[in-house]
């Protein structure tokens, strides 16, 4: 049984079809990232799965249950990190986590959860004294304390500095390694690349592409680009054309092509400055996929 199964999901606001026939399946233990521009319908979709909103059409199953009908049973087994946390910030970290743990059937030990998100040295601190990154990690602790088998993360590292982001990633990777199913939305392509087994791209309420971060949008089949800098004269000696001293060669067999090029450059005694081989980045692929939407 998949952890999440969505068929033909529709949600309209007035005349606006915010979600316009989305299909989505997340297997147990899988980490899936939902990407898409602002207003694409990511948060609406997630909030329907979490039971915050009712759908106007389609089928939804979360852990085998319909969130519109079995909200409470589902909530006992899912964890939610919202975009806005909504914590009473006069509480201490431990108090907030302890209180959040109360209504769950099988809560995790409080100290363990606080430790897991790296807030052990802030356990007794008032929440209002935490930094933005620390608050976001507290959000994660609050989502984890019920020991969820399915975790929803809505832009979990927005506003983080790079070090804090890496730290959160390692926590999330640890959860995934322990078999927690994770559905996350993000604006950061490298976040999807780092965390997700599978990426789903949504624009205008529809899924426009899905696949592994490496293969999505035909990324793995697209030609690689070999780039280097030489003078125009040297480029001509290699039988190539330089543009402002930059040579770009597109190839679907980069190993062979690179070998041939460097061989000839060695023979001719030409140094290929700034030599690099690139495949289209996830970001380039993503921008191409959503290009029509913005």
């Amino acid at each position: 049984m998949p952890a999440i199964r969505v068929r033909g999901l529709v949600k309209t606001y007035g005349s606006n079809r915010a979600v316009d026939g989305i299909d989505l399946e997340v297997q147990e233990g899988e980490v899936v990232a939902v990407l898409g521009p602002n207003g694409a319908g990511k948060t609406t979709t997630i909030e329907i799965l979490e039971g915050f909103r009712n759908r106007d059409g389609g089928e939804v199953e979360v852990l085998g249950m319909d969130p519109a009908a079995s909200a409470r049973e589902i909530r006992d087994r899912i964890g939610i990190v919202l975009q806005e946390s909504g914590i009473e910030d006069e509480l201490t970290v431990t108090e907030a986590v302890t209180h959040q743990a109360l209504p769950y059937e099988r809560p995790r030990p409080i100290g363990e959860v606080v430790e897991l998100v790296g807030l052990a040295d802030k356990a007794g601190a008032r929440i209002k004294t935490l930094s933005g990154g620390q608050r976001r990690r507290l959000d994660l602790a609050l989502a984890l304390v019920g020991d969820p088998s399915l975790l929803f993360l809505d832009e979990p590292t927005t506003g983080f500095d790079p070090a804090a982001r890496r730290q959160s990633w390692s926590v999330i990777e640890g959860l995934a390694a322990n078999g927690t199913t994770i559905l996350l939305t993000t604006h950061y392509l490298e976040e999807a690349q780092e965390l997700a087994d599978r990426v789903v791209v949504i624009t205008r309420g529809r899924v426009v592409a899905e696949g592994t971060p490496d293969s999505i949008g035909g990324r793995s089949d697209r030609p690689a680009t070999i780039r280097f800098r030489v003078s125009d004269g040297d480029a001509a000696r290699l039988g190539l054309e330089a543009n402002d001293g930059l040579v770009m060669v597109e190839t679907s067999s980069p190993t062979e092509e690179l070998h041939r090029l460097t061989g000839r450059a060695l023979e001719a005694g030409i140094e290929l400055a700034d030599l690099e081989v690139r495949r289209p980045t996830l970001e380039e692929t993503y921008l191409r996929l959503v290009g029509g939407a913005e």
Partner: protein
Amino acid sequence: MRRPGWLALALAETRMQVRLLLRNVVAAFFTLVMPLLFLILLNFFIGDGELSDGSALSNYFTPAIAVFGLVTATFTNLAISTAMARDAGVLKRVYGSPMPLSAHVAGRVLSATLLGLASVVVMLAIGALVYGVEIPWSRMPVFFGVLLIGAAAFSALGVAVAMVTPNARAAPAVANAVILPLTFVSGIFFPLTDAPAWLQLVGRALPLAPFVESAVDQFVPWLIDGSIVWRLGVMMAWGLFGAVLALRFFRWEPSGIRRQSLEIDT
């Protein structure tokens, strides 16, 4: 491990809210200090006034202002704090957990009621010790029974105001726009019996005058005609109206956010 029952969860929420109140000293202080200020000012200006039987006027307005203190702690306080909690996403986080929202809201109502009762006790103590108010001890059980019914009714109305108010910034203005005019037609500053007949009629159809008169009745039983059962009935009807309104308009996010967030992100 078994999940605690509804009552245990509601009491845990109450403890949490009381703890938050104690930590937010400024808010708690102003909830207590405003009625206290009224008590002191009224005693200063009309403290030497007398009721028609010759007893001190403070025997009337001290319990009346104690009721006002309870209404401030429940109605005004809940209207503002519940709207703020909603706008900050607190209600949404509760809604996303197995904590029943009803238990969470019950915790808010119970903690506000406790704060209000504390305010009443302070007011009566100052009235008795400083201004010579006679406490009718034998009528205290009825007095506190009236306070509990009133607290329930005004809590329901307070949550209702929070829910029909579009965002937390507007909540203090809306709450005060409701409660301040109400105080003047409800016999808090002077007995309603001195007012024109039409004003008495209007006041007694609204929820505050029946509350004030039921409470004051325990201190000066001869002053006001009419049945306490009828007054409690009017209060409960208003409380029921508030509860229906609160449930009907319950939202865990500020209104208008949908349109906004469609532009920013959904």
